[in-house]
């Protein structure tokens, strides 16, 4: 299937620094795509190029195979990290205004606003001024404004920052529903764990370069280390050359918890068979690295050691 959005060798430089350096991405249609990386990596710069707020110095963006052009804006919904609303405007009017700026007719917009306010159970707010709403309420309104024109590509920059858990779940459910209905969603965040379970594919960006991208499952497979987590009871003594104990914890009443890595083409079954001979196994599962772990490992390969430590502390 043709990707809904392609970035080809995009470069963007500001006066003092290079924000994007030869970044290429394919974003598959009807997926949730995670654009991940620490603060200042270049995510927002890339998004601003996609939303045509700024232009790329080199390279190009293709939307459904066409070079990006102003007409495409109607098909993109963007919730910026720096987002706000007109404080002195009524919620209903504000949504109507933003929807009409995106090309909806007054009648269509009114209809859809009604639908969304009902869905979020906030119909009575329509006549309230934005400044009278709580922050969480405002975020719901902002989300509605982003998706009101039924864009096929929805870009959410740090969508959950500042959301309380209840609203965050509400939004997550809506995002999944929108994908079911055919939309493609780009998440941009530096808090990788917050979107890990939702993303179909990801791209990791660090210091203006893409360091890794692809479907989440493939990436995780690629970064698996043949390490298994074992819990059980008894006295665990591993004396096998192909099994390496990375971590060993003795717990009360003779319980233990270990991380064991396989070498020399041995299989998990081999390990299990070996363990069963000496201890009572309660749990046995493959240790799958989190995106955060993968990111740190990947960055460590491309970054001076001192900076990695700094990053680990801040993230």
């Amino acid at each position: 299937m043709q990707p809904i959005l392609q970035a080809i060798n995009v470069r963007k430089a500001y006066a003092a620094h290079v924000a994007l350096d030869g970044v290429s991405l394919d974003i598959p249609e009807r997926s949730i795509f995670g654009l991940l990386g620490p603060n200042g990596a270049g995510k927002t710069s890339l998004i601003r190029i996609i939303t045509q707020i700024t232009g790329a110095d080199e390279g190009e963006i293709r939307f459904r195979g066409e070079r990006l052009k102003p007409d495409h804006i109607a098909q993109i919904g963007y919730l910026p990290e720096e987002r706000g609303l007109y404080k002195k405007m009524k919620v209903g009017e504000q949504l109507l205004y933003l929807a009409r700026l995106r090309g909806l007719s007054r009648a269509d917009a009114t209809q859809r606003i009604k639908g969304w306010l009902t869905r979020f159970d906030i119909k009575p707010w329509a006549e309230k001024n934005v400044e009278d709403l709580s922050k969480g309420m405002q975020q719901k309104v902002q989300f509605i404004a982003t998706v009101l024109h039924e864009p096929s590509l929805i870009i959410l920059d740090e969508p959950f920052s500042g959301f309380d858990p209840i609203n965050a779940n509400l939004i997550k459910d809506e995002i999944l529903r929108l994908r079911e209905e055919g939309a493609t969603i780009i998440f941009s965040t530096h808090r990788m764990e917050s979107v890990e379970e939702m993303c179909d594919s990801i791209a990791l960006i660090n210091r203006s370069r893409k360091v890794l991208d692809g479907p989440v499952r493939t990436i995780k497979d690629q970064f698996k280390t043949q390490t298994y987590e074992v819990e059980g009871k008894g006295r665990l003594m591993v004396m096998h050359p192909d099994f390496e104990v990375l971590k060993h914890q003795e717990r009360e009443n003779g319980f233990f918890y270990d991380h064991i890595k396989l070498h020399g083409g041995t299989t998990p079954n081999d390990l299990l068979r070996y363990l069963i001979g000496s201890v009572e196994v309660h749990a046995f599962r493959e240790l799958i690295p989190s995106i955060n772990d993968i990111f740190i490992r990947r960055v460590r390969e491309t970054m001076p050691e001192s900076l990695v430590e700094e990053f680990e502390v801040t993230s």
Partner: protein
Amino acid sequence: MDKIWLIAQREYLTRVRKKSFIIMSLIGPLLTVALFAVPILIASLSDKDKTVAVADAGNLFSQQLPEAKEDLRFVRVSPELAKAKQEFKAGKYEALVYIPKLDLANPTGFQVFSRKGLSVTLERDINRVINQEVENQRLAQSGIARATLDRLKADVDLQTVSLSEDGERSSSTGVSTGIAYLCGFLIYMFIFIYGVQIMRGVMEEKTSRIVEVVISTVKPFQLMMGKVLGIAGVGLTQLTLWVVLSIGINSAIAGSISPEKIMQSRVDRTTAMVRTDTPAEKAAKKETNVAAKMVTALHNANLNVPLLVGCFLFYFLGGYLFYGSLFGAIGSAVDNDTDTQQFMLPVTMPLILTFVVSQAILTTNPNGTVAVWMSMIPFTSPIAMMMRLPFGGVPMWQLGVSMVLLVAGFVATTWLAGRIYRVGILMYGKKVTYGELSKWMFYKG
């Protein structure tokens, strides 16, 4: 284009609905009414009945005291000052006039006593009455009749006529100056008030962080233009309301306190104080003439009203548009109010300068070199040209060049402001310098 229209609509509606707009629309006309009504009211209030005691030791008014008027009476008291003072204290006199023994050639020693200081009008009236009588007696001594003297006095009215290419046209410098100031001031005020509104509007969008939401759907330039045009609409609405309401309220008030009536009563009073047709009366009549003149002056001055109104609207909007986008650019470059100061000054400087200079140069020498140049350069032309036009004699080519330059200037400042604006609105937490601003202009896409 329809997006600019949408944005302008929002800017217009949110502002027009604000309480502050409604209050301003009402206060404006009330202020202009007050400007006209208050002096009249004060004049009519202070003119209540007054009695002045006259201690005539010099027998100046030996035959007859000055005649009483409805609000000013003269009463003779004891010619001895000490006794007169006691009478003054006992009675309800507004003032006590002491006339000493006189040498008509060199009359000195007149004294006026009062309880709480004398009002200017009363002092003037008393002064006039005494002068009048002294003059009369001197004339009598010299054997000249008052009437003869009055016939001899010259009082010439100048009718000023401006000669221009359009032919001879009578003009009134006073009226022209008044109109020039009014036009200049309105444009000056409009640019300031609404320019600052643009600036604040941009800053509000920036600080409330709505700007990135909006410019992902419209171009920054569209957002800026929409705002500038929407606020222009607000300004025009306000101006229209002011004009309509001012005329309405003024004509309503004119019914109850007519300036003519009050003027007339004053004239009557001054006339009553002197018995013959004196210069004082003539002066008073002239005063009424001025009032009447003000009403008919617009016709007499033979102003080209359609041209003036047309040009006023052009320069009113042109000046606003020229400066408006610059104010928008300032708003985009800063994060808070205090930072605006350093950028405001250079923008507002030419405006303030024109207004200050206008008194010295523009109205006194409306077709001089400085005035011509100032009415050409777009930075100063909106005010300068509107201050020249009422005097007439501005060649059509100058008006044409000035207008073309203003339009060109407006396109240029808008383009320039647009370049700054698109970078500025997304720039947070950075102290901006002039160097920085100039760099922004050359940023690509």
